[in-house]
Protein backbone atom coordinates (compact mmCIF):
# COMPACT_ATOMS: atom_id res chain seq x y z
CA UNK A 1 0.00 0.00 0.00
CA UNK A 2 2.78 2.37 0.78
CA UNK A 3 5.19 1.36 -1.96
CA UNK A 4 4.23 4.40 -3.98
CA UNK A 5 5.66 6.91 -1.54
CA UNK A 6 7.65 9.67 -3.13
CA UNK A 7 10.31 9.42 -0.45
CA UNK A 8 12.00 12.26 1.32
CA UNK A 9 13.31 13.85 -1.79
CA UNK A 10 12.22 17.48 -1.82
CA UNK A 11 11.40 19.57 -4.83
CA UNK A 12 8.58 19.92 -7.24
CA UNK A 13 9.28 17.11 -9.66
CA UNK A 14 9.32 13.71 -8.07
CA UNK A 15 10.31 10.93 -10.41
CA UNK A 16 7.77 8.15 -10.68
CA UNK A 17 6.82 5.46 -13.14
CA UNK A 18 4.85 8.04 -15.05
CA UNK A 19 7.76 10.43 -15.24
CA UNK A 20 8.19 13.80 -13.59
CA UNK A 21 5.03 15.03 -11.93
CA UNK A 22 4.41 18.76 -11.87
CA UNK A 23 3.50 20.55 -8.68
CA UNK A 24 -0.20 21.33 -8.36
CA UNK A 25 -0.23 22.93 -4.92
CA UNK A 26 2.47 25.26 -3.74
CA UNK A 27 2.03 26.89 -0.32
CA UNK A 28 4.63 29.20 1.22
CA UNK A 29 4.26 30.71 4.66
CA UNK A 30 0.51 30.24 4.41
CA UNK A 31 -1.12 32.03 7.34
CA UNK A 32 -4.69 32.55 8.46
CA UNK A 33 -5.63 34.65 11.45
CA UNK A 34 -9.09 35.26 12.87
CA UNK A 35 -8.60 38.29 15.08
CA UNK A 36 -6.06 37.26 17.72
CA UNK A 37 -6.37 33.59 16.91
CA UNK A 38 -3.90 32.12 14.43
CA UNK A 39 -5.54 29.11 12.80
CA UNK A 40 -2.77 28.44 10.30
CA UNK A 41 0.67 29.68 11.21
CA UNK A 42 2.97 30.01 8.23
CA UNK A 43 2.91 26.53 6.76
CA UNK A 44 4.72 25.59 3.55
CA UNK A 45 4.26 22.49 1.46
CA UNK A 46 4.08 21.29 -2.10
CA UNK A 47 1.98 18.57 -3.63
CA UNK A 48 2.81 16.95 -6.97
CA UNK A 49 0.04 15.90 -9.34
CA UNK A 50 -1.44 12.49 -8.65
CA UNK A 51 -0.24 12.32 -5.08
CA UNK A 52 -2.43 11.39 -2.19
CA UNK A 53 -1.56 13.96 0.43
CA UNK A 54 -2.84 13.94 3.99
CA UNK A 55 -3.22 16.61 6.64
CA UNK A 56 -3.26 15.08 10.09
CA UNK A 57 -3.83 16.83 13.33
CA UNK A 58 -6.07 17.16 16.36
CA UNK A 59 -9.28 19.17 16.24
CA UNK A 60 -8.59 22.86 15.76
CA UNK A 61 -5.13 22.25 14.34
CA UNK A 62 -5.91 24.23 11.19
CA UNK A 63 -6.58 21.39 8.76
CA UNK A 64 -9.99 22.50 7.55
CA UNK A 65 -8.89 26.12 7.28
CA UNK A 66 -6.00 25.02 5.08
CA UNK A 67 -8.42 23.05 2.92
CA UNK A 68 -10.71 26.06 2.63
CA UNK A 69 -7.81 28.25 1.55
CA UNK A 70 -6.85 25.72 -1.13
CA UNK A 71 -10.42 25.87 -2.42
CA UNK A 72 -10.30 29.66 -2.39
CA UNK A 73 -13.28 29.93 -0.05
CA UNK A 74 -11.15 31.30 2.75
CA UNK A 75 -8.87 34.27 2.22
CA UNK A 76 -5.36 33.89 3.60
CA UNK A 77 -3.97 36.53 5.92
CA UNK A 78 -0.49 36.27 4.45
CA UNK A 79 1.80 33.93 2.56
CA UNK A 80 1.62 32.56 -0.94
CA UNK A 81 -0.63 29.92 -2.38
CA UNK A 82 -0.77 28.61 -5.92
CA UNK A 83 -3.19 25.98 -7.13
CA UNK A 84 -2.26 24.75 -10.58
CA UNK A 85 -0.33 27.97 -11.02
CA UNK A 86 -3.18 30.29 -10.00
CA UNK A 87 -4.03 32.26 -6.90
CA UNK A 88 -7.34 30.76 -5.71
CA UNK A 89 -8.42 34.11 -4.25
CA UNK A 90 -8.14 36.04 -7.49
CA UNK A 91 -9.32 33.20 -9.75
CA UNK A 92 -11.69 31.32 -7.43
CA UNK A 93 -14.28 30.15 -9.97
CA UNK A 94 -11.61 29.01 -12.43
CA UNK A 95 -9.56 27.14 -9.81
CA UNK A 96 -12.65 25.50 -8.36
CA UNK A 97 -13.66 24.34 -11.84
CA UNK A 98 -10.81 21.83 -11.51
CA UNK A 99 -11.43 20.92 -7.88
CA UNK A 100 -13.80 18.46 -6.29
CA UNK A 101 -14.77 19.21 -2.72
CA UNK A 102 -16.09 16.83 -0.09
CA UNK A 103 -16.83 18.99 2.95
CA UNK A 104 -16.72 17.76 6.51
CA UNK A 105 -20.50 17.74 6.72
CA UNK A 106 -22.62 16.55 3.83
CA UNK A 107 -24.44 19.50 2.39
CA UNK A 108 -26.52 17.85 -0.27
CA UNK A 109 -29.43 19.74 -1.76
CA UNK A 110 -32.39 18.29 0.14
CA UNK A 111 -34.90 19.99 -2.13
CA UNK A 112 -33.66 17.90 -5.06
CA UNK A 113 -33.67 14.17 -5.65
CA UNK A 114 -30.51 12.07 -5.69
CA UNK A 115 -29.79 12.15 -9.42
CA UNK A 116 -30.81 15.80 -9.74
CA UNK A 117 -28.29 16.63 -7.04
CA UNK A 118 -25.55 15.49 -9.39
CA UNK A 119 -26.95 17.17 -12.47
CA UNK A 120 -27.68 20.52 -10.84
CA UNK A 121 -24.24 20.53 -9.22
CA UNK A 122 -22.71 19.91 -12.63
CA UNK A 123 -24.67 22.85 -14.00
CA UNK A 124 -22.96 25.06 -11.41
CA UNK A 125 -19.77 24.26 -13.30
CA UNK A 126 -21.44 25.31 -16.53
CA UNK A 127 -21.39 21.75 -17.88
CA UNK A 128 -23.56 20.61 -20.74
CA UNK A 129 -26.80 18.87 -19.82
CA UNK A 130 -26.29 15.92 -22.18
CA UNK A 131 -22.84 15.25 -20.75
CA UNK A 132 -24.29 15.50 -17.24
CA UNK A 133 -27.05 12.97 -17.78
CA UNK A 134 -24.54 10.33 -18.82
CA UNK A 135 -22.02 11.37 -16.17
CA UNK A 136 -24.64 11.31 -13.41
CA UNK A 137 -25.59 7.73 -14.24
CA UNK A 138 -21.96 6.72 -14.32
CA UNK A 139 -21.33 8.32 -10.92
CA UNK A 140 -24.44 6.79 -9.39
CA UNK A 141 -23.03 3.46 -10.44
CA UNK A 142 -19.63 4.35 -8.99
CA UNK A 143 -21.28 5.33 -5.70
CA UNK A 144 -23.50 2.23 -5.74
CA UNK A 145 -26.61 4.39 -5.68
CA UNK A 146 -28.16 3.54 -9.03
CA UNK A 147 -31.34 2.16 -7.49
CA UNK A 148 -31.65 5.32 -5.36
CA UNK A 149 -31.50 7.70 -8.32
CA UNK A 150 -34.98 9.10 -7.72
CA UNK A 151 -34.96 8.87 -3.93
CA UNK A 152 -35.15 11.89 -1.69
CA UNK A 153 -31.86 12.85 -0.11
CA UNK A 154 -33.22 12.66 3.45
CA UNK A 155 -34.18 9.02 2.86
CA UNK A 156 -30.52 8.02 2.38
CA UNK A 157 -28.38 6.48 5.12
CA UNK A 158 -25.28 8.29 6.37
CA UNK A 159 -22.98 6.14 4.25
CA UNK A 160 -25.10 6.69 1.15
CA UNK A 161 -25.12 10.45 1.69
CA UNK A 162 -21.37 10.42 2.00
CA UNK A 163 -21.00 8.42 -1.20
CA UNK A 164 -23.38 10.77 -2.96
CA UNK A 165 -21.34 13.75 -1.76
CA UNK A 166 -18.20 12.13 -3.15
CA UNK A 167 -19.97 11.27 -6.41
CA UNK A 168 -21.13 14.88 -6.61
CA UNK A 169 -17.59 16.15 -6.13
CA UNK A 170 -16.53 14.16 -9.20
CA UNK A 171 -19.14 15.55 -11.59
CA UNK A 172 -16.65 18.00 -13.13
CA UNK A 173 -13.92 15.33 -13.46
CA UNK A 174 -11.68 17.25 -11.07
CA UNK A 175 -7.93 16.93 -11.14
CA UNK A 176 -7.80 17.45 -7.45
CA UNK A 177 -10.16 16.19 -4.80
CA UNK A 178 -10.33 17.88 -1.38
CA UNK A 179 -11.71 15.51 1.25
CA UNK A 180 -12.31 16.91 4.71
CA UNK A 181 -12.62 13.97 7.11
CA UNK A 182 -14.27 11.79 4.47
CA UNK A 183 -15.20 8.87 6.70
CA UNK A 184 -15.97 10.50 10.05
CA UNK A 185 -19.17 9.08 11.46
CA UNK A 186 -19.38 6.08 9.13
CA UNK A 187 -19.55 2.45 10.14
CA UNK A 188 -16.62 0.13 9.20
CA UNK A 189 -18.35 -1.30 6.13
CA UNK A 190 -19.17 2.12 4.75
CA UNK A 191 -15.59 3.27 5.41
CA UNK A 192 -14.14 0.37 3.47
CA UNK A 193 -16.45 0.99 0.53
CA UNK A 194 -15.35 4.61 0.53
CA UNK A 195 -11.67 3.79 0.75
CA UNK A 196 -12.07 1.45 -2.18
CA UNK A 197 -13.67 4.25 -4.23
CA UNK A 198 -10.90 6.66 -3.29
CA UNK A 199 -8.26 4.12 -4.29
CA UNK A 200 -9.80 3.88 -7.72
CA UNK A 201 -9.68 7.63 -8.13
CA UNK A 202 -6.06 7.65 -7.10
CA UNK A 203 -5.33 5.01 -9.70
CA UNK A 204 -6.94 7.26 -12.27
CA UNK A 205 -4.43 9.96 -11.42
CA UNK A 206 -6.61 12.26 -9.32
CA UNK A 207 -4.66 14.22 -6.72
CA UNK A 208 -6.22 13.57 -3.32
CA UNK A 209 -5.89 16.02 -0.48
CA UNK A 210 -7.47 14.73 2.68
CA UNK A 211 -7.71 15.57 6.32
CA UNK A 212 -8.42 12.90 8.84
CA UNK A 213 -7.84 12.00 12.40
CA UNK A 214 -8.13 8.32 11.73
CA UNK A 215 -4.58 7.04 11.62
CA UNK A 216 -5.53 3.84 9.84
CA UNK A 217 -7.17 5.94 7.16
CA UNK A 218 -4.03 8.00 6.71
CA UNK A 219 -1.91 4.85 6.48
CA UNK A 220 -4.31 3.37 3.95
CA UNK A 221 -4.73 6.35 1.71
CA UNK A 222 -1.82 8.76 1.96
CA UNK A 223 1.42 8.67 0.00
CA UNK A 224 2.70 11.50 2.09
CA UNK A 225 1.35 13.54 4.92
CA UNK A 226 1.98 16.46 7.19
CA UNK A 227 1.13 16.42 10.86
CA UNK A 228 -0.20 19.81 11.94
CA UNK A 229 -0.77 21.12 15.42
CA UNK A 230 -1.56 24.67 16.49
CA UNK A 231 -1.43 25.69 12.84
CA UNK A 232 2.18 24.54 12.37
CA UNK A 233 3.70 21.59 10.59
CA UNK A 234 5.15 19.20 13.16
CA UNK A 235 6.38 16.55 10.71
CA UNK A 236 6.25 15.66 7.06
CA UNK A 237 6.85 12.43 5.17
CA UNK A 238 5.35 9.14 4.08
CA UNK A 239 3.58 7.12 6.79
CA UNK A 240 6.46 4.61 6.83
CA UNK A 241 9.05 7.36 7.14
CA UNK A 242 7.22 9.08 9.93
CA UNK A 243 6.95 5.83 11.85
CA UNK A 244 10.65 5.25 11.34
CA UNK A 245 11.56 8.73 12.42
CA UNK A 246 9.18 9.32 15.31
CA UNK A 247 8.56 5.87 16.67
CA UNK A 248 10.30 2.52 17.04
CA UNK A 249 9.64 -0.51 14.92
CA UNK A 250 7.52 -2.17 17.57
CA UNK A 251 5.54 -1.20 20.61
CA UNK A 252 5.09 -3.37 23.68
CA UNK A 253 1.95 -2.69 25.68
CA UNK A 254 2.03 -4.01 29.24
CA UNK A 255 -0.59 -3.71 31.97
CA UNK A 256 0.16 -4.05 35.64
CA UNK A 257 -3.20 -2.81 36.85
CA UNK A 258 -4.24 0.80 37.13
CA UNK A 259 -2.73 1.29 40.61
CA UNK A 260 0.64 -0.18 39.84
CA UNK A 261 1.42 1.09 36.32
CA UNK A 262 3.04 4.35 37.40
CA UNK A 263 4.93 2.67 40.23
CA UNK A 264 6.46 0.08 37.92
CA UNK A 265 7.85 2.53 35.39
CA UNK A 266 11.15 3.33 37.21
CA UNK A 267 11.94 -0.37 37.21
CA UNK A 268 11.72 -0.47 33.43
CA UNK A 269 14.67 1.89 32.96
CA UNK A 270 16.91 0.82 30.11
CA UNK A 271 14.35 -1.40 28.45
CA UNK A 272 13.26 -0.06 25.04
CA UNK A 273 13.94 3.46 23.81
CA UNK A 274 11.10 5.31 25.43
CA UNK A 275 8.16 4.70 27.74
CA UNK A 276 4.78 6.23 27.84
CA UNK A 277 2.49 5.78 30.83
CA UNK A 278 -1.21 5.76 30.11
CA UNK A 279 -3.79 5.34 32.87
CA UNK A 280 -4.46 1.73 31.91
CA UNK A 281 -1.14 0.57 30.45
CA UNK A 282 2.49 1.33 29.76
CA UNK A 283 3.79 1.62 26.22
CA UNK A 284 7.38 0.50 25.74
CA UNK A 285 8.80 1.68 22.44
CA UNK A 286 11.37 -0.86 21.31
CA UNK A 287 12.92 -2.23 18.17
CA UNK A 288 12.16 -5.76 19.32
CA UNK A 289 9.03 -5.98 21.44
CA UNK A 290 9.46 -9.64 22.39
CA UNK A 291 12.99 -9.01 23.64
CA UNK A 292 11.74 -6.10 25.70
CA UNK A 293 9.06 -8.26 27.24
CA UNK A 294 11.64 -10.93 28.10
CA UNK A 295 13.79 -8.28 29.75
CA UNK A 296 10.83 -7.09 31.83
CA UNK A 297 10.00 -10.61 32.96
CA UNK A 298 13.72 -11.12 33.61
CA UNK A 299 13.54 -8.31 36.18
CA UNK A 300 10.91 -10.25 38.07
CA UNK A 301 8.01 -8.09 36.88
CA UNK A 302 4.92 -9.92 35.78
CA UNK A 303 2.48 -7.85 33.72
CA UNK A 304 -1.17 -8.90 33.84
CA UNK A 305 -1.38 -8.70 30.07
CA UNK A 306 1.11 -7.88 27.35
CA UNK A 307 0.86 -7.17 23.65
CA UNK A 308 3.54 -6.66 21.03
CA UNK A 309 2.50 -4.77 17.94
CA UNK A 310 4.07 -2.83 15.13
CA UNK A 311 4.30 0.91 15.51
CA UNK A 312 1.52 2.78 13.79
CA UNK A 313 0.92 6.35 12.78
CA UNK A 314 -1.11 6.68 15.93
CA UNK A 315 2.10 6.40 17.96
CA UNK A 316 3.70 9.08 15.78
CA UNK A 317 0.68 11.28 16.10
CA UNK A 318 0.50 10.99 19.88
CA UNK A 319 4.22 11.52 20.18
CA UNK A 320 4.07 14.69 18.10
CA UNK A 321 0.85 16.27 19.24
CA UNK A 322 0.73 15.07 22.84
CA UNK A 323 -1.84 13.01 24.63
CA UNK A 324 -3.79 15.74 26.29
CA UNK A 325 -7.18 16.36 24.84
CA UNK A 326 -7.05 19.38 22.59
CA UNK A 327 -10.26 21.28 22.10
Amino acid sequence: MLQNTPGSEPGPSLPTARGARPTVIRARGLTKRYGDFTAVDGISFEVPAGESFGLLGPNGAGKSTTMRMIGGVSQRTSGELEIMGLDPEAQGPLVRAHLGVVPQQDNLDEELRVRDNLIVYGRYFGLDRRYLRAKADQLLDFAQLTDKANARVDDLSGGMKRRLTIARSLINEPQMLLLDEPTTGLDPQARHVLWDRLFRLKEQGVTLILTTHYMDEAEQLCDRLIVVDHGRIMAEGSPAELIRRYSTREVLEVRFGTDRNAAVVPQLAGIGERHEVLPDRILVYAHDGEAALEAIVGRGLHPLTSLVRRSSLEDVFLNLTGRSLVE
Partner: protein
Amino acid sequence: MTQQTSVLEPSRRPFAGLYAGNVRAVVERGLMALKTNNWAVFVSGFVEPVLFLAAMGIGLGPLIGGVEGPGGSEMSYGAYIAPALLAVSAMNGAVYDSTNNVFFKLRFSKLYQNMLYTSLGPLDVAMGEIYLALQRGFLYATALMVVMSSLGLVTTPAALLMVPAAVLVAFGFAALGMGITSFMKRFQHLDWVNFALLPMFLFSATLYPLSVYPTGIQLFIQALPLWHGVELMRSLSVGYFTPALLGHVSYYVVMVLAGVVLTTARLRALFLR
Protein backbone atom coordinates in the same frame (compact mmCIF):
# COMPACT_ATOMS: atom_id res chain seq x y z
CA MET B 1 -10.08 10.26 -16.38
CA THR B 2 -8.49 13.69 -16.40
CA GLN B 3 -5.95 15.32 -18.61
CA GLN B 4 -3.47 16.56 -16.11
CA THR B 5 -2.93 20.20 -16.84
CA SER B 6 -0.86 21.41 -13.98
CA VAL B 7 -0.87 25.06 -14.94
CA LEU B 8 -4.06 26.92 -15.73
CA GLU B 9 -4.37 30.07 -17.81
CA PRO B 10 -5.79 32.86 -15.66
CA SER B 11 -9.22 34.09 -16.68
CA ARG B 12 -9.26 37.59 -18.14
CA ARG B 13 -12.91 38.15 -17.42
CA PRO B 14 -13.44 41.23 -15.27
CA PHE B 15 -14.29 40.33 -11.66
CA ALA B 16 -12.99 36.79 -12.32
CA GLY B 17 -13.11 36.06 -8.60
CA LEU B 18 -16.74 37.16 -8.29
CA TYR B 19 -18.47 36.18 -11.47
CA ALA B 20 -18.41 33.12 -13.72
CA GLY B 21 -21.14 34.11 -16.16
CA ASN B 22 -23.37 31.27 -15.03
CA VAL B 23 -26.44 32.87 -13.45
CA ARG B 24 -28.56 30.40 -15.39
CA ALA B 25 -27.48 27.39 -13.33
CA VAL B 26 -28.65 29.12 -10.14
CA VAL B 27 -32.01 29.93 -11.70
CA GLU B 28 -32.43 26.37 -13.01
CA ARG B 29 -31.79 24.97 -9.57
CA GLY B 30 -34.42 27.30 -8.10
CA LEU B 31 -37.00 26.25 -10.68
CA MET B 32 -36.27 22.57 -10.06
CA ALA B 33 -36.58 23.01 -6.31
CA LEU B 34 -39.87 24.81 -6.85
CA LYS B 35 -41.38 21.52 -7.96
CA THR B 36 -41.06 20.19 -4.44
CA ASN B 37 -42.30 23.42 -2.88
CA ASN B 38 -45.63 23.96 -1.27
CA TRP B 39 -47.84 25.54 -3.89
CA ALA B 40 -50.36 26.72 -1.35
CA VAL B 41 -47.75 29.13 0.02
CA PHE B 42 -47.06 30.32 -3.48
CA VAL B 43 -50.73 31.02 -4.19
CA SER B 44 -51.48 32.70 -0.85
CA GLY B 45 -49.11 35.55 -1.65
CA PHE B 46 -51.13 36.33 -4.75
CA VAL B 47 -54.54 36.05 -3.10
CA GLU B 48 -53.86 38.75 -0.53
CA PRO B 49 -53.96 41.77 -2.87
CA VAL B 50 -56.93 40.28 -4.73
CA LEU B 51 -58.86 40.15 -1.46
CA PHE B 52 -57.93 43.75 -0.77
CA LEU B 53 -59.09 44.76 -4.22
CA ALA B 54 -62.37 42.93 -3.72
CA ALA B 55 -63.02 44.30 -0.23
CA MET B 56 -61.92 47.89 -0.85
CA GLY B 57 -62.75 48.31 -4.53
CA ILE B 58 -66.05 46.50 -4.69
CA GLY B 59 -67.16 46.88 -1.10
CA LEU B 60 -65.88 50.30 -0.07
CA GLY B 61 -65.68 51.81 -3.58
CA PRO B 62 -69.38 52.63 -4.09
CA LEU B 63 -69.50 54.43 -0.74
CA ILE B 64 -66.60 56.64 -1.79
CA GLY B 65 -67.64 57.24 -5.38
CA GLY B 66 -65.27 58.94 -7.82
CA VAL B 67 -61.82 60.08 -6.74
CA GLU B 68 -59.25 62.31 -8.37
CA GLY B 69 -56.66 60.28 -10.26
CA PRO B 70 -53.27 61.26 -11.75
CA GLY B 71 -53.48 64.46 -13.78
CA GLY B 72 -56.77 65.40 -12.14
CA SER B 73 -58.93 62.92 -14.03
CA GLU B 74 -61.88 61.41 -12.22
CA MET B 75 -61.75 57.64 -11.63
CA SER B 76 -63.54 54.96 -9.60
CA TYR B 77 -62.06 54.05 -6.23
CA GLY B 78 -61.42 50.49 -7.44
CA ALA B 79 -59.44 51.78 -10.42
CA TYR B 80 -57.57 54.11 -8.05
CA ILE B 81 -56.29 51.45 -5.67
CA ALA B 82 -55.84 48.58 -8.17
CA PRO B 83 -52.50 49.84 -9.59
CA ALA B 84 -51.26 50.45 -6.06
CA LEU B 85 -52.15 46.88 -5.12
CA LEU B 86 -50.28 45.73 -8.20
CA ALA B 87 -47.15 47.40 -6.86
CA VAL B 88 -47.84 45.79 -3.48
CA SER B 89 -48.16 42.30 -4.97
CA ALA B 90 -44.92 42.73 -6.91
CA MET B 91 -43.31 43.77 -3.63
CA ASN B 92 -44.85 40.90 -1.64
CA GLY B 93 -43.72 38.24 -4.07
CA ALA B 94 -40.19 39.56 -4.28
CA VAL B 95 -39.87 40.10 -0.53
CA TYR B 96 -41.28 36.70 0.37
CA ASP B 97 -38.67 34.92 -1.71
CA SER B 98 -35.78 37.18 -0.91
CA THR B 99 -36.34 37.04 2.85
CA ASN B 100 -37.89 33.75 4.01
CA ASN B 101 -36.53 31.50 1.28
CA VAL B 102 -33.16 33.18 1.10
CA PHE B 103 -32.82 33.06 4.88
CA PHE B 104 -33.42 29.31 4.88
CA LYS B 105 -30.89 28.69 2.12
CA LEU B 106 -28.39 30.98 3.77
CA ARG B 107 -28.52 29.68 7.33
CA PHE B 108 -29.95 26.17 7.19
CA SER B 109 -29.61 24.34 3.92
CA LYS B 110 -26.17 25.93 3.33
CA LEU B 111 -27.07 26.14 -0.34
CA TYR B 112 -25.01 29.22 -1.07
CA GLN B 113 -21.97 27.83 0.66
CA ASN B 114 -22.39 24.79 -1.51
CA MET B 115 -22.70 26.81 -4.68
CA LEU B 116 -19.64 28.87 -3.88
CA TYR B 117 -17.54 25.71 -3.60
CA THR B 118 -18.15 25.19 -7.32
CA SER B 119 -17.05 27.48 -10.10
CA LEU B 120 -19.93 29.85 -9.39
CA GLY B 121 -18.99 33.26 -8.02
CA PRO B 122 -20.98 35.30 -5.48
CA LEU B 123 -22.31 37.58 -8.22
CA ASP B 124 -23.75 34.58 -10.09
CA VAL B 125 -25.47 33.38 -6.93
CA ALA B 126 -26.79 36.85 -6.06
CA MET B 127 -28.16 37.50 -9.54
CA GLY B 128 -29.73 34.06 -9.84
CA GLU B 129 -31.47 34.22 -6.49
CA ILE B 130 -32.62 37.79 -7.03
CA TYR B 131 -34.01 36.73 -10.38
CA LEU B 132 -36.03 33.97 -8.73
CA ALA B 133 -37.50 36.43 -6.24
CA LEU B 134 -38.22 38.92 -8.99
CA GLN B 135 -39.96 36.21 -10.96
CA ARG B 136 -42.34 35.54 -8.12
CA GLY B 137 -43.16 39.24 -7.93
CA PHE B 138 -43.69 39.29 -11.67
CA LEU B 139 -46.04 36.29 -11.55
CA TYR B 140 -48.11 37.82 -8.74
CA ALA B 141 -48.34 41.13 -10.58
CA THR B 142 -49.30 39.51 -13.88
CA ALA B 143 -52.00 37.44 -12.23
CA LEU B 144 -53.39 40.55 -10.55
CA MET B 145 -53.30 42.34 -13.90
CA VAL B 146 -55.53 39.62 -15.31
CA VAL B 147 -57.93 40.03 -12.40
CA MET B 148 -57.95 43.79 -12.91
CA SER B 149 -58.77 43.57 -16.58
CA SER B 150 -61.55 41.09 -15.90
CA LEU B 151 -63.02 43.62 -13.47
CA GLY B 152 -62.86 46.29 -16.18
CA LEU B 153 -60.18 48.27 -14.33
CA VAL B 154 -57.76 48.34 -17.28
CA THR B 155 -58.94 51.09 -19.59
CA THR B 156 -55.97 52.09 -21.73
CA PRO B 157 -53.30 50.10 -23.63
CA ALA B 158 -50.68 52.12 -21.79
CA ALA B 159 -51.72 50.21 -18.68
CA LEU B 160 -49.89 47.18 -20.08
CA LEU B 161 -46.69 49.03 -19.19
CA MET B 162 -47.57 48.18 -15.60
CA VAL B 163 -46.23 44.67 -16.24
CA PRO B 164 -42.62 45.71 -17.00
CA ALA B 165 -42.97 48.29 -14.24
CA ALA B 166 -43.95 45.49 -11.87
CA VAL B 167 -40.79 43.64 -12.89
CA LEU B 168 -38.74 46.68 -12.02
CA VAL B 169 -40.48 47.10 -8.65
CA ALA B 170 -40.02 43.39 -7.89
CA PHE B 171 -36.35 43.57 -8.95
CA GLY B 172 -35.73 46.45 -6.57
CA PHE B 173 -37.36 44.74 -3.60
CA ALA B 174 -35.77 41.38 -4.40
CA ALA B 175 -32.26 42.82 -4.65
CA LEU B 176 -32.43 44.96 -1.54
CA GLY B 177 -34.39 42.28 0.32
CA MET B 178 -31.73 39.66 -0.26
CA GLY B 179 -28.99 42.06 0.75
CA ILE B 180 -30.79 42.83 4.00
CA THR B 181 -31.61 39.18 4.67
CA SER B 182 -27.93 38.34 4.52
CA PHE B 183 -27.49 40.21 7.81
CA MET B 184 -30.16 38.20 9.61
CA LYS B 185 -29.12 35.49 12.00
CA ARG B 186 -32.33 34.40 13.69
CA PHE B 187 -35.91 33.73 12.65
CA GLN B 188 -37.10 36.64 14.79
CA HIS B 189 -35.22 39.00 12.50
CA LEU B 190 -37.57 38.01 9.70
CA ASP B 191 -40.49 39.38 11.73
CA TRP B 192 -38.94 42.80 11.49
CA VAL B 193 -39.45 42.66 7.75
CA ASN B 194 -43.20 42.15 8.17
CA PHE B 195 -43.20 44.81 10.83
CA ALA B 196 -41.75 47.27 8.30
CA LEU B 197 -43.81 46.15 5.31
CA LEU B 198 -47.30 46.39 6.75
CA PRO B 199 -47.22 50.11 7.61
CA MET B 200 -45.43 50.81 4.35
CA PHE B 201 -48.28 49.10 2.54
CA LEU B 202 -50.97 50.99 4.45
CA PHE B 203 -49.46 54.46 4.34
CA SER B 204 -47.68 54.72 0.97
CA ALA B 205 -50.61 56.49 -0.74
CA THR B 206 -51.97 53.07 -1.66
CA LEU B 207 -55.54 53.57 -0.43
CA TYR B 208 -55.78 57.39 -0.38
CA PRO B 209 -53.71 60.29 -1.72
CA LEU B 210 -50.50 61.46 -0.13
CA SER B 211 -51.94 64.99 0.26
CA VAL B 212 -53.79 64.01 3.45
CA TYR B 213 -50.47 64.08 5.36
CA PRO B 214 -48.56 67.10 6.66
CA THR B 215 -45.43 67.95 4.65
CA GLY B 216 -42.95 66.24 6.97
CA ILE B 217 -44.69 62.90 6.77
CA GLN B 218 -45.16 63.31 3.03
CA LEU B 219 -41.40 63.68 2.59
CA PHE B 220 -40.78 60.62 4.72
CA ILE B 221 -43.18 58.49 2.70
CA GLN B 222 -41.72 59.78 -0.54
CA ALA B 223 -38.35 58.47 0.58
CA LEU B 224 -39.75 54.93 0.92
CA PRO B 225 -39.65 52.58 -2.08
CA LEU B 226 -43.28 51.51 -2.20
CA TRP B 227 -44.58 55.05 -2.74
CA HIS B 228 -42.51 55.30 -5.95
CA GLY B 229 -43.96 52.00 -7.13
CA VAL B 230 -47.52 53.10 -6.36
CA GLU B 231 -47.11 56.43 -8.14
CA LEU B 232 -45.47 54.76 -11.13
CA MET B 233 -48.24 52.19 -11.49
CA ARG B 234 -51.07 54.63 -10.94
CA SER B 235 -49.77 56.99 -13.64
CA LEU B 236 -49.24 54.16 -16.09
CA SER B 237 -52.72 52.77 -15.43
CA VAL B 238 -54.28 55.86 -16.99
CA GLY B 239 -51.47 56.58 -19.44
CA TYR B 240 -50.48 59.81 -17.68
CA PHE B 241 -46.81 60.37 -18.54
CA THR B 242 -44.80 63.02 -16.72
CA PRO B 243 -41.08 63.52 -16.02
CA ALA B 244 -41.82 62.36 -12.48
CA LEU B 245 -42.03 58.80 -13.83
CA LEU B 246 -38.34 58.97 -14.68
CA GLY B 247 -37.66 59.80 -11.07
CA HIS B 248 -39.62 56.76 -9.88
CA VAL B 249 -37.85 54.51 -12.36
CA SER B 250 -34.45 55.89 -11.34
CA TYR B 251 -35.28 55.23 -7.71
CA TYR B 252 -35.73 51.53 -8.50
CA VAL B 253 -32.67 51.37 -10.73
CA VAL B 254 -30.58 52.65 -7.84
CA MET B 255 -32.29 50.20 -5.49
CA VAL B 256 -31.49 47.31 -7.83
CA LEU B 257 -27.84 48.28 -8.17
CA ALA B 258 -27.42 48.84 -4.45
CA GLY B 259 -29.10 45.52 -3.71
CA VAL B 260 -26.96 43.52 -6.13
CA VAL B 261 -23.73 45.10 -4.91
CA LEU B 262 -24.72 44.62 -1.27
CA THR B 263 -25.78 41.00 -1.77
CA THR B 264 -22.61 40.10 -3.67
CA ALA B 265 -20.44 41.73 -1.04
CA ARG B 266 -22.31 39.96 1.74
CA LEU B 267 -22.11 36.53 0.12
CA ARG B 268 -18.42 37.11 -0.30
CA ALA B 269 -18.02 38.21 3.31
CA LEU B 270 -20.05 35.27 4.61
CA PHE B 271 -18.70 32.43 2.52
CA LEU B 272 -15.39 33.52 1.03
CA ARG B 273 -13.73 34.79 4.16
